[in-house]
């Protein structure tokens, strides 16, 4: 199983089309690195993206430098995955 230790999901709230465009650019800057769970669609909708641990520093710096407000929606994906696996195993037992 692929390990997602330290990977986070960030929730970004873009204020306008310009900020959405900056988020779309991120996909180009970090191809196959940033996984949009909720893609940049319109300013009224949040954008959720999974960022691997190795890219976190860069991506957070990018968001900060462009004034994009974000919160950490999932702090460590692997923790949730471990819980999910354990729940499945428990259910089977």
């Amino acid at each position, binding site marked *: *199983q*692929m390990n*997602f230790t330290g990977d986070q*999901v960030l*929730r970004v709230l873009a204020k306008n089309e310009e900020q959405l465009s900056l988020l779309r650019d991120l996909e180009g800057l970090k*191809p*196959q690195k940033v*996984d*949009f*769970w*909720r*893609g940049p*669609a*319109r300013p009224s*909708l*949040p954008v*959720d993206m*999974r960022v691997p641990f190795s890219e976190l520093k860069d991506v957070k710096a990018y968001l900060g430098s462009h004034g994009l407000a974000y919160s950490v*929606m*999932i702090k460590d*994906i692997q923790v*949730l*995955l471990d*819980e*999910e696996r354990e*729940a*499945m195993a428990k*259910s089977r037992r």
Partner: protein
Amino acid sequence: LERSTSSFSYASYHTLEEIYSWIDNFVAEHSDIVSKIRIGHSFENRSIVVLKFSTGGPQRRAIWIDTGIHSREWITHATGIWTAKKIVTEYGKDRTLTDLLDAMDIFMEIVTNPDGFAFTHSMNRLWRKNKSTRPGIFCIGVDLNRNWKSGFGGNGSNNNPCSETYRGPSPQSEPEVAAIVDFITSHGNIKALISIHSYSQMLMYPYGHSSEPVPNQKELNDLAKDAAQALYEVHGIQYIYGSISTTLYVASGITVDWAYDNGIKFSFTFELRDTGRYGFLLPASQIIPTAQETWLALRTIMEHTLNHPY
């Protein structure tokens, strides 16, 4: 493996093998009303299975429901399983569902992307696409919800095989999509199609590929509003609704656009919970509440389909 559907935990996530085993038990236990149809096979040669709920009669008007086209959206498969069980338990008790099944059939495809789903259990929990490969192309998989012949190749899909929204080389190139297209087309009497995704609490109708309103926009919007209201009344979860392109984003080559363009007026797509904490990793404790509220919305759409023949 589970021995019967009564010992099956509907409040837990399950592997592909467990779901397929549950399907076999479910069909055996409710053979008077449910049957299993194999409509094709996946890229890796897994069976693509559809449940048929019917009280008899050939080629009746019918409703199609699919879950799990994006394999990491586990809550959708779990909701599909709960819904299937709900249909058999409510038949004969719930007037609306009973009237519906006395006149129409329901088809449910619970694992629309079996290869991707198996991969989420064995290798990568967050896999979204199918598992098709092509010579000379490094990246694997096609987004099955960009592979339909309606607006194929337009905005909101990608021609880069490494993209999560890679549309594939041609419309319906993927066996998982082609199987559904062949089945629905040859059936010829599907009147509603509901494709269930997660997450972000939305109920949407065509078009995804264009911001032009569809001819039945008002009826679809009114119905979406009613369905979202019915859903809200269960656990207070608020859904937004509208056309895909105006509510969410422009997306081309998608299931519901194809359905609408092929004469299925009542074409809807759901984005189920989460409300912003877990995304695709919704805890199993939320399966039943999610399924319960979704059921009321599905029931609203199905009832409207029954009462508004076309």
